[in-house]
């Protein structure tokens, strides 16, 4: 790496076990470090790791300009029920909207189902006298006495966070704004969120829930970021702190403190951002990202060069694909989130036989403790990693440069006792079966973002990363008929690299209801310019001149009576004579593309408008790892592949740089510090100029 003063940037991604830190200078290369996470106070681990990495590369602390952070602190607060004591103020007669949710539950065959506990207890859900109708007219004026009575209750109960969501406030915010003023005046120290600021969008449960989540995690996120800033500055790191959002953009720590609900999918989003930029540079328009770690596998789609965002998201619901069909497991969060599907299958997933004699993988995981049987750290259950050891995909001696010893006999024994013997299979067949069932379980995540939305995965390349992405990626690609698998450099710290590629970005939404062919142009223009003002404020908070803002506009549209909207771009900066027709045409086309049919003759209705602001990066891209190690001649290992009668003797490269010298065809393994890549028989492999391993499927 070339040293340039004052222009160093750090990416820090926190996972359950490891904190990954990546450091880059202005020349586009990076170095990385994996350290143990410190769950009691994550900022401690961040600081120690950062200082170690800076010291190792002799970079002066005050030369670091920016630290971009992906954090699980918001999600954890919800999952572990450690949010602030929160109160909710709502319209008289509707305090139970939050608890009753949308009724529907994600478990059909259960008399025992319990929905997640409401984040605000009933006694702190307080009602005020007021009512606005669906046209925005005041039916009952706001009774300020009732607001003061609610504030008395909040004061008496000691809640430290408050959410306000009144019916139809997206249409007329006056009452909600006034309630906010009264709270501010009397309780200046509570964390306050108004639904009109968090999500001014129709549908009261989703808006209330999103606003409540924001307040519930607000004080926690504030405290965490304050502690992190304190630690960094007292260590002499004056870097600007930016946080990864769920939508794939970054924002200042200050903005994250006001909109913490925007950072709940911080970590997973970073990986997709990394893929997005890598794909862009490679000129690939259609890519599916596949991130396989220890307990879950995640997939997301990049189509036509765009990331896919969703607003149908729930936080704290655990891992469930069925949540795409039947929601209710978590708390609705209707903010734009990179659409990531997740299944409970990863390297640590336990393999088992159900009562009817069928082989299953996950969702139970051996985790880091007790771990796969081959770690010999107390785990007896066979896992996917154990199968991969038996098959020869995983190094039979040690992982991570020798720091995790592997006991292949344990893997073999566990598979034999629990799977092979009961099913009357050989151990190798049980391992192959495990690998195959794991792949078949994981492709549900890929299908969820492709075929379920009417997209054919064969039109996409697979970008595989995470600790196990390079092992399972080719098998996944084969099942879905995908032709090419790309494994980026340092797949094990790839999400942290993604952090350094992200740009400040934000999406603003506002409900605007009406048939597109009878909308009042002035109303639309006014609504868009309100959102533009918000975008200008966003740029200001990011410390950037608003003239750099790249703005794109969109509208959520539907046919009358439909309850799902599709988002289509809104061309131009203001409403013009052909806007209605162009929107309708775009909607009919998008409907046809997504669902295979449309109703071209029917009128199209608008529900929301959206405005996205992006501030283009002023730092160097692309990022490639600095000076790859040189680890000598390939060794050979016996490896079992599906469809091969006997194990094959396969060359194992110690670095991807050796690819093509001379072997460039599978079967072949690349075994690096943080991950392994498996190139199956007959598949071609090459290294591109950005150090990606590109596997052409046979």
């Amino acid at each position: 790496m070339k040293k340039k003063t004052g222009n160093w940037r750090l990416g820090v991604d926190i996972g359950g076990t490891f904190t990954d830190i990546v450091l880059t200078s202005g020349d586009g290369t990076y170095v990385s470090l994996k350290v143990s996470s410190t769950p009691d106070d994550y900022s401690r681990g961040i600081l120690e790791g950062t200082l170690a990495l800076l010291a190792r590369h002799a970079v002066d602390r005050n030369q670091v300009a920016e630290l971009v952070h992906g954090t699980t602190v918001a999600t954890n607060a919800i999952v572990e029920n450690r949010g602030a004591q929160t109160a909710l103020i709502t319209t008289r007669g509707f305090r139970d909207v939050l608890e009753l949710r949308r009724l529907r539950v994600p478990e059909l065959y259960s008399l025992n189902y319990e929905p997640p506990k409401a984040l605000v207890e009933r006694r702190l859900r307080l009602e005020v006298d007021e009512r606005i109708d669906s046209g925005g007219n005041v039916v009952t004026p706001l009774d300020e006495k009732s607001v003061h009575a609610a504030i008395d209750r909040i004061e008496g109960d000691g809640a430290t966070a408050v959410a306000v969501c009144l019916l139809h406030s997206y249409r007329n915010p006056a009452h909600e704004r006034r309630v906010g003023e009264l709270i501010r005046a009397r309780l200046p120290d509570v964390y306050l969120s108004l639904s009109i600021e968090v999500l001014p969008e129709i549908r009261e449960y989703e808006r209330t829930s999103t606003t409540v989540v924001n307040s519930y995690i607000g004080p926690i996120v504030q405290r965490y970021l304050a502690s992190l800033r304190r630690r960094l500055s007292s260590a002499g790191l004056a870097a600007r702190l930016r946080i990864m959002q769920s939508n794939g953009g970054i924002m200042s720590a200050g903005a994250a403190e006001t909109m913490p609900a925007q950072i709940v999918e911080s970590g997973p989003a970073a990986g997709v951002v990394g893929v997005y930029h890598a794909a862009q540079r490679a000129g690939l328009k259609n890519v599916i990202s596949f991130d396989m770690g220890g307990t879950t596998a995640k997939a997301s789609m990049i189509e036509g060069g765009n990331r896919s965002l969703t607003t149908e998201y729930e936080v704290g619901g655990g891992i469930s694909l069925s949540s795409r069909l039947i929601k209710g497991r978590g708390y609705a969060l209707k903010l734009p989130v990179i659409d990531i599907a997740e299944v409970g299958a990863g390297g640590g997933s336990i393999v088992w036989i159900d009562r009817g004699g069928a082989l299953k993988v996950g969702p139970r995981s051996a985790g880091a403790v007790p771990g796969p049987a081959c770690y010999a750290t107390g785990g007896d259950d066979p896992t996917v990693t154990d199968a991969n050891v038996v098959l020869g995909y995983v190094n039979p001696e040690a992982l991570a440069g020798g720091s995790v010893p592997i006991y292949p006999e344990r893997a073999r024994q566990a598979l034999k006792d629990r799977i092979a013997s009961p099913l009357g299979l050989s151990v190798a067949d049980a391992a192959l079966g495990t690998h195959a069932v794991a792949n078949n379980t994981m492709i549900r995540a890929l299908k969820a973002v492709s075929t379920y939305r009417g997209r054919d995965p064969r039109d996409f390349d697979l970008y595989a990363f995470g600790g196990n992405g390079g092992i399972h990626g080719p098998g996944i690609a084969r099942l879905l008929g995908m032709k090419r698998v790309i494994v980026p450099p340092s797949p094990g710290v790839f999400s942290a690299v993604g952090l350094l590629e992200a740009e400040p970005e934000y999406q603003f939404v506002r409900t605007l209801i009406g048939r597109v062919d009878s909308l009042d142009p002035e109303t639309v223009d006014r609504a868009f310019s309100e959102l533009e003002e918000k975008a200008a404020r966003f740029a200001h908070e990011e410390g950037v001149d608003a003239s750099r803002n790249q703005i794109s506009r969109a509208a959520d549209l539907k046919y009358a009576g439909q309850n799902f909207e599709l988002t289509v771009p809104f061309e131009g900066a203001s409403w013009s004579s052909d806007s209605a027709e162009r929107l309708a045409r775009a909607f009919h086309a998008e409907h046809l593309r997504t669902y295979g049919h449309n109703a071209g003759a029917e009128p199209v209705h608008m529900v929301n408008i959206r405005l996205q602001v992006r501030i283009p990066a002023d730092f160097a891209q692309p990022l490639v790892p600095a000076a790859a190690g040189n680890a000598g001649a390939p060794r050979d290992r016996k490896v079992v592949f599906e469809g091969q009668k006997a194990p094959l003797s396969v060359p194992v490269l110690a670095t991807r740089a050796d690819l093509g010298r001379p072997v460039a065809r599978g079967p072949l393994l690349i075994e690096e510090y943080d991950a392994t890549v498996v190139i199956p028989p007959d598949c071609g492999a090459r290294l591109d100029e950005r150090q990606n391993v590109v596997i052409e499927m046979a």
Partner: protein
Amino acid sequence: MSNGRALDPITFEVIQNGLASLVDEMALTVMRTAYSGVVKDAMDYSTAFCDADGEVIAQGLTIVLHLGSFPDAVAAIRKKFAGRINEGDVFILNDPYTSGGIHLPDIYVFKPVFATEQAGGRGPVKSLVGFAGCVAHHTDVGGLVPGSNSTESVEIFQEGLRIPALKLFDGGKPVEAVFDFLATNVRLPEKVLGDLRSQIASVATGERGFLQLVARYGAGELRRYTNELLDYTERRARAEIGDMPDGTWEFTDYIDADNIPDGPIAIKVRLTIAGDIIEVDFEGTTKQVPAGINSPLPFSKAGVYGAVRLVMDPAIPTSSGFNRAIRVKMPAGTVVNPVPPAACGARGITGFRVMDAVLGALAQAVPARVSADGDGGNSLITIGGYDDNGAGFAFVDFMAGARGGRPGGDGPEGVPHPGANIANIPVEIAEVEAPVRIEHYGIVPDTGGPGKHRGACAQVRRVRLMSGEATLQLRSDKRFHPPWGLQGGLAGTPSQNTLLSGSGDRDLRTMCQVPMKRGEVILHLLAGGGGWGDPLERDPQLVREDVRNEKLTVAYVLNHYGVAVDPKTFEIDEAQTRAVRAALRRARPERH
């Protein structure tokens, strides 16, 4: 597999996964593209893939009461069109008496799927390999009232358009006559045709997905595995039943049906567990009635299958193999197996009660697995008419979610009856789309049946009509037979329907159809869930939490739980609690 046949367990699991995601994908297609709230929000639809014999090999379930209702419909198609089922056909049906339907608003769409196979020396042959199916509840199919689910109809001819098994597409070409008949006979043709289009898209998705499996495994090999899936499901079901105690248990549950002289309706169940088979006999159930609540046989059977599944491992695959372990006897001419021309538009309530009655019997066989009775299935509030601009509207509202106390804890508020996993209609959406204003939607204190684990509190909804005139239709229950408790738990509070108007308030029957005027308000109070276990054994701390959260009041908990809570500090007076509980116990008649 465990019975030693030469099938590969890995391939089996892979195919099972493939089928499960196939029907999910079909269901998702419907959910995202449907037009009407009944389909989208209530998710009142299901998707299935059946083999060439009509046996369900995978079902994308969104409603338990559709479990096992597909085979009768496929059988009707196969019988009527024997030798005339061709590639590119799509079938449609809804009639219960000629075609295996489950009531007229539920329209089935099936697409036969054909694949090429090597037939011995004769070269490749195209043959039928299965049916992709989708049933959805349509907003309207004509008849007496908007929504076509009147409780007041006395025969099926009043309930709307009867569709026998017909070709909707013939060899890939739409049959215009069928579309025309349909569009002409329903009140909201755009919605009905829109929903129908999404069903057609769904079965096309199913066909595409299944043909991918055929391409990978070959039709013959795939059939061997799907046969094994049926057997495997049966083995799982039998294994679970085998673990239950043998014996015979009886239970009778009721539908108030205060709108007809025949009410209340008794659903009588005699459930026998013998080895690995369950037999459920409905002898003694009320004869069919001149009201729209007769439940066609396929729907009633679905209720039985659904109830039995609730006490089993949820991971059992959803295939017809499950039904083989359960024998259902339903005498013809009763409300659970009506004969023509009995009306069945609002038979959902009978399906719910079939489930409840079976659960009441199972609660005696496996008490640790069954929770107390709940709200009895969702109430339906339909307000239909014309708004002030003369445009027709139909506001279909669902109220649900007061479950009974469970062996493991309280009945949760806001969780619907297991038979119909519906969603509510957002207040803001309702008010944008229909001339109504919802004035109250919430939990009502002191309504959950007392128990060691109490029943869920009831909910109330008040809906004001904002336009000229409309017809209000109610389908509710549990007023005269409120949700029962179990194991010493007590019943929840009864339901209530009141029409509030300037000229005074008027209580309405549980099922009725009345005119509604501008400014009038319908108040519907759901029943509260039944309690589970002795209320005097309830942990006083839980009682205190309920008081703090305003779900129970101080006076109520003293009377029903014998717990003395200070109304200001919420402290429990332990001495008084002991004394009151002792006194309440002494005052009890001998039990057991």
